[in-house]
């Protein structure tokens, strides 16, 4: 097992290098020059050239890449082209809100989807099965921005139950209750999509397991339905569920761009859009890299969790 994990990490290293190369070149082959965006328009060509030199933008792309990579190993992601702050600092201040938003959304989504999926599988083709299947199709099909605007329209603008956006009331006390109040609507939007996707996998995976012989045995020896469903069947249907969770985890970083825009949630998504508008390429590269690393780590964790959940899976 340890050997397997070690090998998986070794394979992930060249992929990570590939990611940094692709990431760097996509962004640096861009025709627009960040210097043109930040220097005031009356600057002379000499001043522009000096600026470019100061940022290393007059060097060939490959040498800029190497420089960036070396700095990366020193934990230095560079400075924002637009605000001059260190990128690490900017990321640090935006990552919390996104992880909070997505983390809560994932948990709420799963807490809705897993029980519903089990019920659907137990009562296949009943009205509740059809209802939940309908809901899941809605969840995977509705664009986040439309659902977001819809819930703002109903719950914030008409019913005045929740605020329309941002994370805390401006000038408020920033208390936990205040944040929760601001979380409700965006979490509802994101959790709808997450649950809609997950419920289908739970349902089909449970259906698969419920038809197995060992469950008939469990029933025959007189175990209660509760234990059969939640202990024997659920455990055995975990593999597809873990796969979906593994695919979902990277959303912690990159999954809420549109929702953050709709709700003006001050996280990485909003930062991405701001950085695009101001051509802040060093920040964009850092966000992309962070998101890609999350994907790689999530894949690795998924593979390890398989073995934990299902001892029949062995790696050698």
């Amino acid at each position: 097992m340890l050997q397997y994990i070690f090998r998986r990490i070794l394979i992930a290293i060249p992929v990570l290098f590939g990611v940094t190369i692709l990431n760097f070149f996509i962004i640096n082959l861009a025709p627009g020059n960040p210097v043109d965006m930040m220097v005031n328009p009356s600057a002379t060509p000499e001043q522009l050239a000096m600026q470019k030199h100061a940022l290393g933008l007059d060097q060939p792309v490959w040498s800029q890449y190497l420089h960036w990579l070396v700095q990366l190993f020193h934990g230095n992601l560079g400075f924002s082209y637009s605000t001059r702050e260190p990128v690490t600092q900017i990321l640090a201040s935006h990552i919390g809100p996104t992880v909070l938003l997505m983390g809560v959304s994932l948990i709420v989504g799963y807490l809705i989807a897993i029980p519903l999926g089990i019920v659907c599988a137990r009562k296949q083709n009943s009205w509740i099965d059809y209802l939940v299947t309908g809901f899941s199709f809605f969840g995977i099909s509705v664009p986040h921005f439309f659902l977001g605007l819809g819930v703002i329209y109903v719950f914030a603008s008409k019913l005045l139950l929740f605020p329309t956006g941002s994370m805390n009331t401006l000038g408020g006390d920033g208390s936990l209750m205040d944040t929760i109040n601001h979380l409700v609507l965006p979490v509802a939007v994101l959790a709808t999509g997450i649950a809609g996707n997950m419920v289908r996998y739970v349902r089909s995976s449970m259906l698969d397991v419920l038809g197995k012989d060992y469950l008939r045995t469990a029933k025959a020896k007189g175990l209660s339905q509760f234990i059969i469903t939640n202990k024997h069947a659920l455990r055995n249907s975990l593999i597809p569920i873990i796969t979906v969770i593994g695919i979902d985890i990277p959303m912690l970083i990159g999954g809420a761009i549109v929702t953050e825009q709709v709700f003006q949630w001050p996280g990485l998504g909003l930062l991405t859009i701001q950085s695009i508008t101001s051509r802040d390429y060093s920040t964009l590269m850092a966000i992309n890299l962070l998101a890609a690393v999350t994907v790689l780590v999530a894949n690795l964790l998924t593979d390890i969790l398989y073995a934990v959940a299902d001892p029949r899976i062995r790696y050698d």
Partner: protein
Amino acid sequence: MAMNLNPNKNVPETEGLKSSEQILLQLGEEESYLHMVMRRFLKHKLAVAGLIVFGLIILIAALAPVISPHDPNKIFGEFEAAPSATHILGTDPVGRDVMSRLIYGAQVSIAVGIGAVAIYVALGIVLGLVAGYFGKWVDMLIMRLTDIFMSFPYFMVILVLVSIIGPSLFNITFVIGLLGWPAIARLVRGSVLSIKEMDYVKAGVALGYSTPKILFQHILPNALAPILVNATFGVASAIIMEASLSFLGMGVRPPAASWGNMLTQAESITVLSSQPWLWIPPGLMILLAVLSINFIGDGLRDAIESQNAK
């Protein structure tokens, strides 16, 4: 769409006696398979409903110049007018007819949805076939490339790339098409690995057929079913992607009408709360289009999977 499975176009015109016999045999089997899939698909009520709705949306897109009540870019005197007899869905803040823009918006969604998926399915098929068939370092290289592309958060990279090369209908189709291939490539590679050991492929090699011919005429037709299902769901996600990009101002830009950019106006709280005719109809159209395609995909998957299980 299921007609893509039609094996007729894969029948070579000049063949030796033996191989054409073989192909005829294969053809007979394929047609009954296709027939079975179609029959199962048609039993799936939601999938048929999805097919009808999506067909209607394609029809609206195709007939937009005929059925649209006004020119979608013509500016009328009244801004933000409520729905009336002349403007069924009212006018937008610039004074354009919302109904006409809604009709023309269908063209954008269909073009991006089908265009982008066509590009990445083609890319994915070629890369997957090459990786699976040749194996060794070619496979290793292509699969690592797949890993790299799959490690990027899809929407974020598309957003950044589009913003760099400039938002336009063509560019978003191109970018979604350029980045969507890894899933298809993996799928095709998997199919190739299981198919290439089959006797009929070995027979093709023994008969001295060229490699592209074996890949595209003998292996690909037998790997089409899962590609078709994946591509169908892909059209739905490309439509959401276009709408989201246009909503963020990084897709199709006004004055051109897209369902996504029609919703941008609703970011203003006045439009959101007092002019629902401006944003609810385009939102519902996106939902309807995506929902109908997802139903089609679900029906196709059921039809193909339950067939394979037998």
